[in-house]
């Protein structure tokens, strides 16, 4: 049984069919890519899986259990972590607080601890601080721990978002254009980070990207989405040479 | 004989907030009273002329502020006696403070029984709702012979609400249950009463009683006429302001209300006061000014009859309070007053008719 399995997922916005009969199955440790022209419905697929929208039709199974219809926080808690295409960080919080907060559902002190500052709470806070710092180190942003996020360079913000997503303890990590707005050097750094994450945490990754270098080098299997439908699925080489993909997405000049 | 002790009189009045006009009236009356004392060279207590100082404080028309003001005047300024606060929502909690500190206080205008209840140090200068309600009910019955009345009042304000209830009770005692055919209310600061008035007109009432303040009176009366009401409208002492006519105009001519004194055709001291006030401030004093004036008169008399001011403010307060409780038949501009055990005055009410010139004419007097 696959880790995450999606069957026949379809979604409409009003009259617009954004996603049609979408299927996916991710195995542990896999890196999957999702590419497609702008407006194809990639982000919508992420939003559907992570519970921000509820699919009009179809099933989503995580470890065999259906998760469609659960609230986003419940889905996140069960092991789907994500980043956002348009960086959704909390303006007034520090980097460390971001990562700590993502431990929310796993906190072991309740409101009582929050109100009265029990020793259990202090222990717990110390524990998640340590773990958060580890994650920040992994992302090479530990030195920024006490900064407020709006002051950070764009690339750092992306990495904070990723650390935050990892802190939820995901089984599958969803990355929506993690390198948008980065220069080639940062792109290479980001690729290294993703490899590191995959190796050390052993989780599956699902990636939306327009930077071909990234997709082709990192992904095991790539899906190409056009108008909400998957037109091709396969290894990087297969995709790169698929005429339909070239036609709809890559363009001849790029491939050449 | 050193210098004569300074006597401080506190005035706790709403200079800002909802009813600044009331504060203004109290302040003006108090200042006139002080002028008189000054002219006389001080307040004569047992043959010694004591200088008098007014401590006028703003209570912002808020309960907590009135409490603070009273506390401040008592403990900081060490006033001998306090006049005010005017409305019950401030006078009730402020009275508690005065009573706790054993400082005599007289609220000229508060009609809520709680203000003075079980508080030996607290007095008031006006009659209470339980008295005024029946006065009006009897008056209407005797004068017009009506049996079906309607009431329109402000639920969120304690004075109109209290009076409305007492009127209703008195009326139903006279004419049986259900004889108040419409009992309608609105909320402070409302300006439109058309729905309630439509209900009232629809109910077949013969008379409308509305114990409201003057600004609302103008609106109620005009709107009632616009909705086709031609029957009498009767009010209470809260109508007794020069502004009622100013705001209401001809619409109010010919209406009746019960009050403490009638400005038009007043004679003697009352007229003197009215003329003096009008000369100075340009308008005929409201009932609240007249009541404050009387309250200060009572205070003055109580201090005088107390016999001596020692400078030990606690003893003096006790002395003044005892003297005040003993006042008999104080002859004020709003009538003769004697205090009951609770510190409430026994005094007559006056029914006033608004003449076609817009003056308040004495119509008849009703005594308990």
């Amino acid at each position, binding site marked *: 049984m696959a880790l995450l399995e999606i069957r026949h997922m379809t979604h409409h916005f009003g009259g617009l069919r954004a996603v049609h009969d979408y299927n996916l199955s991710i195995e542990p440790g896999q890196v999957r890519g999702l590419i497609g022209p702008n407006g194809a419905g990639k982000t919508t697929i992420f939003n559907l899986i992570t519970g921000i929208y509820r699919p009009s039709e179809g099933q989503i199974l995580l470890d065999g259990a259906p998760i469609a219809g659960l609230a986003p926080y419940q889905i996140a808690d069960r092991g789907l972590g994500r980043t956002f295409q348009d960086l959704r960080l909390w303006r007034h919080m520090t980097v460390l607080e971001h990562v700590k907060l993502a431990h929310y559902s796993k906190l072991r002190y309740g409101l009582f601890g929050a109100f009265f500052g029990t020793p259990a709470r202090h222990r717990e806070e110390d524990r998640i601080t340590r773990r958060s710092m580890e994650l920040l180190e992994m992302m090479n942003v530990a030195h920024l721990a006490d900064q407020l996020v709006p002051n950070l360079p764009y690339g750092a913000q992306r990495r904070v978002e990723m650390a935050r997503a990892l802190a939820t303890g995901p089984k599958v990590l969803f990355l929506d254009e993690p390198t948008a707005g980065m220069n080639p050097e940062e792109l290479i750094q980001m690729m290294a980070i993703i490899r590191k994450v995959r190796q050390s945490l052993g989780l599956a990754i699902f990636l939306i990207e327009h930077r071909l270098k990234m997709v082709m080098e990192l992904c095991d299997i790539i899906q190409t989405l056009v108008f909400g439908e998957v037109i091709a699925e396969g290894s990087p080489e297969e995709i790169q040479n698929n005429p339909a993909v070239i036609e709809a997405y890559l363009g001849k000049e790029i491939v050449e | 004989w050193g210098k004569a002790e300074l006597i401080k009189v506190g005035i706790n009045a709403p200079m800002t907030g909802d009813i600044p006009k009331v504060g203004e009236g109290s302040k003006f009356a108090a200042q006139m009273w002080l002028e008189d004392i000054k002219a006389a060279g001080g307040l004569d207590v047992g043959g010694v002329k004591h200088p008098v100082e007014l401590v006028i404080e703003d209570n912002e028309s808020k309960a907590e502020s009135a409490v603070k003001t009273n506390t401040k005047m008592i403990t900081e300024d060490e006033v001998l006696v306090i006049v005010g606060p005017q409305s019950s929502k401030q006078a009730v909690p402020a009275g508690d403070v005065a009573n706790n500190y054993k400082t005599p206080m007289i609220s000229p205008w508060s009609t809520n029984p709680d203000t003075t209840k079980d508080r030996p140090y607290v007095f008031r200068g006006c009659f209470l709702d339980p008295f005024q309600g029946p006065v009006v009910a009897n008056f209407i019955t005797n004068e017009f012979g009506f049996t079906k009345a309607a009431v329109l009042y402000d*639920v969120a304000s304690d004075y109109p609400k209290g009076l409305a209830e007492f009127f209703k009770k008195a009326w139903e005692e006279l004419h049986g249950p259900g004889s108040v055919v419409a009992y309608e*209310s*609105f909320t402070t*600061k409302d300006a439109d009463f*058309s*729905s*309630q008035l*439509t209900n009232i007109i629809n109910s077949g009432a013969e008379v409308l009683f509305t114990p409201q303040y003057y600004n609302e009176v103008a*609106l109620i009366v005009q709107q009632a006429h616009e909705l086709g009401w031609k029957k009498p409208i009767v009010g209470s002492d809260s109508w007794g302001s020069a502004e009622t006519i100013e705001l209401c105009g001809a619409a109010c001519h010919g209406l009746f209300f019960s009050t403490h004194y009638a400005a038009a055709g007043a004679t003697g001291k009352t007229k003197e006061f009215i003329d003096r006030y009008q000369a100075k401030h340009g*308008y005929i004093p409201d009932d609240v000014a007249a009541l404050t004036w009387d309250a200060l008169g009572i205070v003055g008399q109580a201090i005088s009859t107390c016999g001596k001011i020692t400078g030990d403010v606690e003893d003096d307060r006790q002395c003044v309070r005892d003297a005040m409780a003993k006042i008999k038949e104080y002859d004020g501009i709003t009538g003769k007053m004697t205090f009951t055990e609770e510190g409430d005055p026994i005094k007559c009410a006056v029914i006033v008719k608004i003449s076609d010139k817009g003056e308040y004419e004495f119509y008849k007097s009703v005594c308990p």
Partner: protein
Amino acid sequence: MVFFLQNIINALQWGSFYAMIALGYSMVYSILMLFNFAHGDIFMVGAYIGFGVATGLVTLSATGFIALPGWVILVLTILLSMFLTSFVGMIVERVGYRPLRDAPRASAAITGLMIGIILETGNLALMGARRVSFPPLIESVTYNIGGVFVTNKKILIVVVSLAFMLALHLFVQRTRYGMAMRAMAFDFVVVPLMGVPVNTIARLTFAIGSALAAVAGILFGLAYPVLDPYMGIVFGWKAFVAAILGGRGSIMGATLAGFLLGFIEIFVAMIFPSTLRDLIAYSIILLILVFRPHGFFGEPYSARLRL
């Protein structure tokens, strides 16, 4: 039936005030996304300015110098007061809102609240504690139509306010000024990049909103001729309710919600014991919002909105 019709007339008049004031509120609200808590007090100032102008004109006309009929005075009063009050609005914008444009919205709301208090207190200090009576510019005539009483003033009020609403709606929906206003509501930082002069639009918005408040103030003066410095508070807050209930930035919504509020208040008082009016009326509002969480014409909460 007569009874019912009468209350509809009542509600129309009452609702038109809420609608007019909500409209001015909604103007500012929909453009700058600010709660203009000073709006109720601008309404008060408008009424007083109207009072001043009307009294002046009446006196002038009484001297016989130029005898003007009542309706001419009324029209002149409305126009002059709109003009004058719009300056008050512009000053409020300049002093209280422009410096705070990048600040959290709530801070600007607090400034508005404070400006309101200053206007109230300033009025109290200037005019003294007495209330003033608005001059009856037109002879009140009551028509009895089958037991339903209607006055010429009521008709005037409803008609004038509906006319202003329609005009404003067209202005906002059809003109580029209106479009610029709606865009500013969303993100005013980049509005200048479209060649739109932001300050002018903001000033214009406040000017229009305040001018409407002046009209409302004068009509109010005609219908309820007692003015006091605190008369705007309750109206301001209720307009706040109506403006938002209508839906963020929707002129039609604000109008509709204003009338709705008027109808609810009048009819609740008609059907239920009137002591329970606020309790029931606002429970209804609350329920409406529970089931329509974004007002009548509003869009869902957008994360772009500042604090």
